[in-house]
């Protein structure tokens, strides 16, 4: 059984080795069959994605932002898929929470423009070089002004109380409501 698993992973290991040769600044591991994971410093993300695209990762499926409150960092996960290798790869990079700036990858994957607008709206990550960041996206103007975000320290209950004027129905001392 263990040997079978190893055989199916060897293709992933080959891809990781090939990419790391060209991008020695990154770390790469095989998570399982057809799932790779790379960790890249934030200032080299453009170089790394350019290398990845030249080596068969044609599709950028999503840019996910995860807010790690305790570490004070925002993690960006670039979900890549390679049709030629049949492999999914997560490219992870971390940014400081209070100064979340990173270069755009629009010139490599043009679709990144949309994903970056999404991450900018909900996680306040600034992508330098993306011309549409300040355009209206999903939120309404009043919510943009309030700073509605998906960050972990966003006061959801307070926002709901203010927005829907339900103060009388809520107990101010309570912090949690069981749904």
């Amino acid at each position: 059984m263990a040997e079978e698993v190893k055989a199916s992973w060897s293709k992933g290991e080959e891809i990781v080795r090939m990419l790391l040769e060209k991008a020695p600044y990154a770390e790469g591991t095989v998570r399982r069959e057809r799932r790779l994971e790379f960790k890249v410093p934030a200032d080299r993300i453009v170089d790394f994605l350019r290398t990845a695209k030249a080596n068969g990762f044609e599709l950028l499926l999503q840019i996910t932002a995860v807010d790690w409150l305790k570490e004070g960092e925002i993690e960006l996960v670039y979900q890549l898929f390679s049709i030629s290798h049949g492999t999914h790869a997560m490219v992870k990079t971390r940014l400081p929470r209070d100064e979340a700036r990173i270069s755009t990858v629009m010139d490599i994957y043009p679709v990144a423009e949309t994903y970056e607008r999404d991450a900018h709206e909900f996680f306040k990550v600034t992508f330098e070089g993306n011309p549409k960041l300040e355009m209206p996206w999903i939120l309404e103007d009043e919510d943009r002004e309030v700073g509605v975000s998906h960050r972990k320290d966003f006061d959801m209950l307070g926002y709901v109380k203010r927005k829907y004027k339900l103060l009388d129905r809520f107990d101010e001392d309570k912090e949690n409501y069981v749904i």
Partner: protein
Amino acid sequence: MVTQEELIREARENGMELLPLEKDTYELFFGPQHMATENYSLILKMDGHRVVKAIANPGFLHRGFEKLAEYRPWHTNIALLLRICVPEPDVPEAIYSMAVDELMGWEVPERAQWIRTTVLEMARVSAYLFWMMGLSFKLGVYTAGQWAAAYRERFMALFEELTGARVYHIYTIPGGVRRDIPGDKWLRQLRDTVEYIKDKLKDFDNLVFENYITYRRLEGIGVMDKKFALNEGVTGPNLRATGVPYDVRRADPYLLYPELDFEVPVLKEGDALARALVRRFEFEQDLYILEQLLDMGPPSGPYKVDHPSLKALPRFRVPAGDAFAHVEATKGDFGAYVVSDGGNKPYRVQIRGPSIAHGIRVIEQLLVGARLADVPVILMSLDNCPPDIDR
């Protein structure tokens, strides 16, 4: 006889700002109340009846599901996240459950895998029927649209018997499915329905897919090539219509798909007609897959993982880590990225709907130069689903 200039002057005097920007150009707000756009809006700058510029304007359906999911226990999120995709709600259920399965390290029992595959294929068939209804209505072939809606109803009834609900099933859960197949009678009904719809496919061909009007309306509009499609993150039938044979069921197989025999239809033209025909061929393949699954029959065994944590759901905890799972939906590559910090609620859930790629940049570029009458047809040929974008 009042001339146009007089009308414009009168309007200006009364404080009405008219939209025409120059002589023949004007702005048109297309949607969100337009039938073709489905809760989504396009701002079109028109010159006569040609589109000069299009700006996608999403956000009318934003309900903050991804944020809400962080406040709810793992299992209750299924009842929330499936609302992201209205025509095939089984897809978000399945990807979320598959990601949680991976985090838990669970191998789903064979019977549950069979049921999940069948449910996903049934969802695909009913979503394609829903799409056929939309396309026929936009082309003006109302009869075929009514048929498609009526045939979809047969699958709704089967879903109701299996899961207890017609549209939002809340059926696939981490570790398996919520309840077992009601019995052999249900399997016989499913086979009858599949055969019935297979029989009716030639009616759709006669009326829609081999119709001269369809060809005239769809051929050569909204053309995209292979390189453009890959750069813009286009997936699903829209990508296969440009000549790339990418199907998640083949490229990154899940559930029982490695054991099933089916073809991935690919066309090269990349226009609206190619996209429509790819969907029509896939519809046939899905019926064929359902037949194979029924021939195989559900394997015996449990329909969900036997694990003590599934007996006390409020205390259900998932080990820390992250996982990505994706399946092939009728609209494209549907994926979920789930992060856990070891608690009884997810730390972060992101759903990647295919329309976030199709509905913003692709539509903005495909619409340039299109006629106003072609806008709904191009939207329908991309099978744009706005809830994916807004979430």
